[in-house]
């Protein structure tokens, strides 16, 4: 926790252009207690206990089909839990809410809206006046490096640019939790590294709680404060602290290497 606080303050001073950093709403506490998740009749996760403290970045790894996406969709409120309790700050999550933004793996931008109109959408839903909407959307598109593409339709930009636009769309409404479902899974390695850097940079301005699902262990160990293992030998829910969160140079540090081995072993990879 202390490390992430330090990075937050240093980032604020490093990027003075960050809009409304002081006003950023605090993150939420997400908690699953003995939860059973899945579609009715087809549960994929049982007895899951997991807690994400406010402002924490939790990465979730596991083999495909282990229920990573199911976990995120449940936290988003799109899929009701089959059993147990799923709560946000102690209140049960029963339906989607603008507090919890979801970033999809596949392209979830509305193809008939320009990138700017897509980013404006969450603000329009909240009833933000048109002029203010436009300014805030433009500011976010600039932060993710899409200022000159803001008038384009999604199919006219690259896959990486579409995911950046999705990132801007998720963060423009100042959500208190950001749920990310393998957002960089379809990108090539180089674009992905750039997107990870960008994500670290833009998250520094917010206090949002983040749950980031990935099948890439290196990505999980770079981005997260902690990493949760789903599926694998024990079934799921084990959470490990990450020694050097968001430090690219720590890739080969002894603690990181040991943790990577532990994660890979417990996943049976």
């Amino acid at each position, binding site marked *: 926790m202390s490390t992430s606080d330090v990075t937050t303050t240093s980032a604020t001073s490093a990027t003075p252009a960050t809009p409304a950093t002081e006003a950023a709403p605090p993150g939420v506490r997400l908690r699953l207690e003995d939860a059973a998740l899945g579609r009715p009749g087809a549960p994929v996760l049982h007895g899951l206990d997991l807690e994400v403290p406010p402002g924490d970045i939790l990465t979730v790894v596991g083999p495909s089909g282990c229920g990573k996406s199911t976990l995120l969709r449940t936290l988003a409120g799109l899929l009701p839990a089959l059993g147990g309790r799923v709560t946000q700050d102690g209140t049960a999550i029963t339906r989607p*809410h603008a507090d919890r933004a979801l970033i999809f793996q596949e392209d979830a931008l509305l193809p008939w809206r320009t990138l700017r109109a897509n980013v404006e959408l969450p603000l329009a839903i909240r009833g933000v006046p048109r002029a203010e909407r436009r300014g805030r959307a433009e500011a976010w598109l600039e932060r993710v490096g899409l200022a000159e593409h803001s008038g384009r339709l999604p199919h006219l930009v690259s896959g990486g640019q579409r995911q950046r636009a999705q990132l801007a769309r998720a963060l423009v409404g100042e959500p208190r939790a950001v749920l990310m479902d393998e957002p960089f899974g379809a990108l090539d390695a180089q674009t992905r590294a750039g997107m990870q850097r960008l994500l670290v940079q833009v998250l520094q301005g917010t206090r949002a709680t983040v749950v980031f699902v990935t099948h890439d262990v290196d990505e999980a160990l770079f981005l997260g404060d902690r990493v949760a293992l789903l599926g694998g030998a024990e079934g799921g829910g084990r959470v490990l602290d990450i020694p050097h969160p968001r430090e690219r140079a720590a890739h080969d540090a002894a603690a990181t290497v040991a943790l990577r081995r532990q994660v890979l072993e417990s996943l049976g990879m």
Partner: protein
Amino acid sequence: MSAPTGPMSAPTSSVRSRPAPDASGAGARAAAPRPLRRRPWVRHTLRAGSLLAALGLWQLLTALDVNLWLRFAQFPSATDVVREFADRLGTGAYWQDLTDSLSRILTGFVLAAVLGMAVGTAIARSPLVSDLLGPVLEVCRPIPAIALVPVAILMFPSNEQGIVFITFTAAFFPVMVSTRHAVRALAPVWEEAVLTMGGGRGRVLVSVVLPGALPGILGGLSVGIGVSWICVISAEMISGAYGVGYRTWQDYTIVDYPGVFVGMTTIGVLGWLTSTAVELAGRRLTRWLPRTETTGRPAPTRKEAATP
């Protein structure tokens, strides 16, 4: 030939509206449509030529009184019809009939478009509505709209409303069915995205369902306007008081064959204009659809290449 220049001007204007030539992307795209630029001109010439050739053949067959099993001796010639057409254009009755038919079809079609989209969406999204309305509509659907003339006469106080009702029924089913399919085929990820932004049901309908289903609905609207014409003309012939269909049938009963052909031509041109209007409006509304930018021939398939 002052044909609509919509498809011609579209690529040019989209290039022009781009604010600044950014990197290589815009340059490459601007170069792509160049081989296409002369083609619309050729295509318009071909289209006009096809119409003129049909008229020429008609004139030839009737002027020579061709009698080869098909008999053209009694047939009015193209010039007879043109002369008759010119006469009629000067009369108030022609324009009265034309506006009568147009107002009937537009009223019926607009009602069908609005209700067809609403009912199709409701059936696709609500199992309850689907169970309640589905069976009734499926039983009514195979009945040809023109067979509803007795129903229309029984139900409606005036002929006018009966004709609009028949036109409406004709267009309603294609629109409703295409909407139902298009809404069911929508990618759930768009709806989920709007839901997680805090959007409610109304927002999902307006921002996701309607625009997302529109490309599919347009097919139904296009079919609907065509069927509407068939039915408005038939209904006017059967029960009408004025209108292009009524006039055409009147001319037939008094053996005024050129007049019949004037009526038929009028129906053809009006039908063409209205369906073109629907197509153009549709293309404008779905300008966001990704379109192929290359017009190159597809590569030979493996089967062709493999044949010895």
